[in-house]
């Protein structure tokens, strides 16, 4: 039984405030598939930003391709705006090793040269394996390496967390 209680909706309210503080003129939100993309979608509305947010996937730049193969069903990068010269705010649900963030930054640069890239996350669970830090995290927790934490979204658009025991 999990004793960890994470209220995703409450944390999302904090994230809205945190991301608002990161925005500058010419900023654009890009959500990391899939949880981050859901968050970016809702943030775009709640922060009253024009247009659609970007969606980005790490699939083509993952460093575990040799071990795990091509990740299937990993969505597709869709950036409905020019990223050249923009201040990109990457949004993710859970930050862990930092490897996904690294892959996503590489993916982003395949589309051009942004003015800056920052990262905002719902939960930072520690365990970093790369020198990557978020500009904002709504919560910081310590979680055993065996446990998997991911965001879920129900039909009404409400967020919750799934915590699974790994192998």
């Amino acid at each position, binding site marked *: 039984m999990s004793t960890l209680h994470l209220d995703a909706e409450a944390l999302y309210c904090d994230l809205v405030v945190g991301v608002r503080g990161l925005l500058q003129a010419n900023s654009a939100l890009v959500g990391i598939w899939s949880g981050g993309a859901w968050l970016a979608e809702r943030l775009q509305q709640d922060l009253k930003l024009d247009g659609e947010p970007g969606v980005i996937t790490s*699939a*083509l*730049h993952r460093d575990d*391709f*040799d071990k*795990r*193969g*091509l990740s*299937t*069903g990993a969505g*597709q*990068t869709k950036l409905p705006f020019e990223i050249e010269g923009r201040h990109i705010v990457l949004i993710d649900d859970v930050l862990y090793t930092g490897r996904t963030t690294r892959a996503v930054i*590489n993916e982003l*640069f*395949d*589309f*051009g040269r942004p003015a800056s890239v920052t990262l905002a996350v719902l939960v930072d669970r520690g365990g970093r394996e790369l020198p990557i830090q978020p500009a904002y995290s709504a919560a910081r927790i310590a979680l055993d390496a065996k446990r998997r934490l991911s965001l879920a979204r129900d039909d009404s658009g409400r967020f919750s967390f799934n915590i699974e025991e790994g192998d």
Partner: protein
Amino acid sequence: MLSRRNPQLNQHGELVHLLSIEGLPRAVIHQILDTAGTFLSVNDREVKKVPLLRGKSVFNLFFENSTRTRTTFEIAAKRLSADVINLDIAKSSASKGESLLDTIANLSAMHADMFVVRHSESGAPYLIAQHCAPHVHVVNAGDGRHAHPTQGLLDMYTIRHYKQDFTKLTVAIVGDIVHSRVARSDIHALTTLGVPEVRAVGPKTLVPGDLKEMGVRVCHDMAEGIRGADVIIMLRLQNERMSGAMLPSAGEFFKNYGLTQEKLALAKPDAIVMHPGPINRGVEIDSSVADGKQSVILPQVTFGIAVRMAVMSTIAGNNA
């Protein structure tokens, strides 16, 4: 370990070689087509390259000439960041008497990670797949009359792109079906994907009656064959066979089975016209049809690169 039932799949049912569409599960085909969609969008990026095969060596082994297929495989491998080595085997060691497996052993010693093989003998890519090291992957780029699976998959990508749902379609394959590995791969793919009506259209000498066993309706009359079709796949009439007893003449063939605007009008108004290329204008297809608004022959070529990227990256990421 390779599956005993299907040498292209490992024990987890993942694709490690692409040898034939025959026996591929529907889910594997859809997965490749979905992946190809991702790679198609790579063309829209500033950097038209992804690093999945960085540091890997892809050897194009063409024992039979084919500029177009070899080039699209080369582009696909380069867009995946692989190093590509083209060997025109027809002109090299094989002509000096080296056996196929000795050639493979030598190239493996040069640290090949993937072989893309075209051979005039059916089954040559299977032989290579059975004898190469476990980390080496093989793609069949056309073997004899047997199979041309990447052409089959790019045809399926094209059909899905324009028609979405396979389960309501009538697809007519027209021309020299008996000699065509493309036709065979297309038929396996179409039936696996649930196309309710696949027709093989052409003269008795070029369309064998036993195709019925593959779930295909055989039509020796062109009008009957393309009437109401959603998709028409024209095959190249191989000029080299024209002089034999198979056909009276190219002109005769065009009169009966060449796709003209008049014959195309028998198909559905939104039918698409496909051709694996190279086309023989005025032999199997009229210029006005090949260049017409229903023709998707050039998009097929573009899709072919994305499909080959999908195949190569899928098999490279799966271990035997």
